[in-house]
C-alpha cells in the first residue's frame, strides 16, 4: 500500500469573499461582525474581515469527499487554524496521503489536510482519517 503514500488529492478551490461567507452564515447562523465587517476584523487585530473557521472545516471535508466520491467515509478530522482567511483571496483545500492500513474490514487512509491561500499561506492544517470498505 506504500504506493499510495504522498498521493495528492485533487484540490478544492473557492473564492474567499463576502458572498461566500454570507452564504455560509445564512445556513450556519454565523453572522458575526469579524466575518462581515472590515472594521471589526481590524479591531480583532487583522487587516480586514476574515472567513469563518467552520467554513475552513467544511472545505477540508469537501476535499476529502471530492476524492472519495460516495465510496468512503470520513472517520475523523483534526485541524488547527493557523492564519485568518482574508477577503479577496483564493482558498485551496488540499490533501496528501500519509498512511494506508487495514483495520478490520476497512482500508483506512490517513491524509494530511490543509487550506492555503494562493501565496502559500497555510490557513488551517490537520489530519483526516477516511475508511473504505474492503471488497470481499
Amino acid at each position, binding site marked *: 500500500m506504500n504506493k499510495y503514500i504522498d498521493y495528492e488529492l485533487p484540490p478544492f478551490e*473557492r473564492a474567499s469573499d463576502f458572498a*461566500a461567507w454570507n*452564504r*455560509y452564515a*445564512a*445556513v*450556519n*447562523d*454565523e453572522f*458575526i*461582525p*469579524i466575518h462581515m465587517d472590515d472594521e471589526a476584523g481590524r*479591531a*480583532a*487585530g487583522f487587516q480586514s474581515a476574515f472567513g*469563518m*473557521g*467552520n*467554513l475552513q*472545516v*467544511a*472545505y477540508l*471535508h*469537501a476535499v476529502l*469527499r471530492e476524492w472519495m*466520491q*460516495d*465510496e468512503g*467515509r*470520513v*472517520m*475523523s*478530522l*483534526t*485541524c*488547527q*487554524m493557523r492564519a485568518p482567511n482574508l477577503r479577496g483571496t483564493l482558498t485551496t483545500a488540499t490533501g496528501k496521503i500519509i498512511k494506508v492500513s487495514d483495520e478490520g474490514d476497512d482500508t483506512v487512509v490517513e491524509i494530511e489536510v490543509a487550506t492555503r491561500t494562493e501565496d502559500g499561506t497555510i490557513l*488551517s492544517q*490537520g489530519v483526516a482519517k477516511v475508511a473504505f*470498505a474492503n471488497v470481499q
Partner: protein
Amino acid sequence: MMETWISDEMRSAIGREFGTVIRSLPICASDIRKWALAIYWPKPPPKLFWDEAYAATTQHRGIVAPEEFNPFAWFTADGPVLPRESSQNPLRSGPEGALKISAPDTHVALNGGREIVHGVRMRPGDVITQGPTKLVDYRERSTRHGLTLITVTESTWTNQSEETVRVTRGTSLRY
C-alpha cells in the same frame, strides 16, 4: 503585560460540564440541500446531498447530510435561536457564563481548531441531541496578539436512536 488569564476559579472548573441539552428539529432535506450548495457554490454539490433517486443507489441508501452539517442553526426543538448575551458580544464569549464563574476580560474570541470524530451520518428526519458540553482544558500561549487563552471543550451529538453522530473537541482562542 497580563500574567495569566486563568483564575483559580477557572482552573477548578476544568472537567465540569456546562450548558443544557439541545435537541434539533427533525432535519429537513431542504436544509441539507441549502447547506451543501453554500459550501460548493458556484459548482453543484454532490448528488448524494440533493438527488434522492441517485442517493438511493449509494451505500447510504438515501440523502445524507455533509459530515460538517449543523442541525442546530437558527431553530431548535425549543424554538428560534435568538441572540443571547454571549452572541450579542461574541468577541468576548466563552464557557464561563454557563459555568457561572467570572470570565476573563478578553476582547476577541476566535476558532482555534477542531478535533472531530464522526459516527453515523445525519439524514432527513433525524433528531440530533447535543448533550452538555465539557470544559476539557484551559491553556495559554504567547502570540502576536499577546497572551492568548486557549479553551478546549468537548461535545457529543447523538441521533434519535442514541447512535453517536459526532464528538467534537473545539479549541477557542481569546485575547
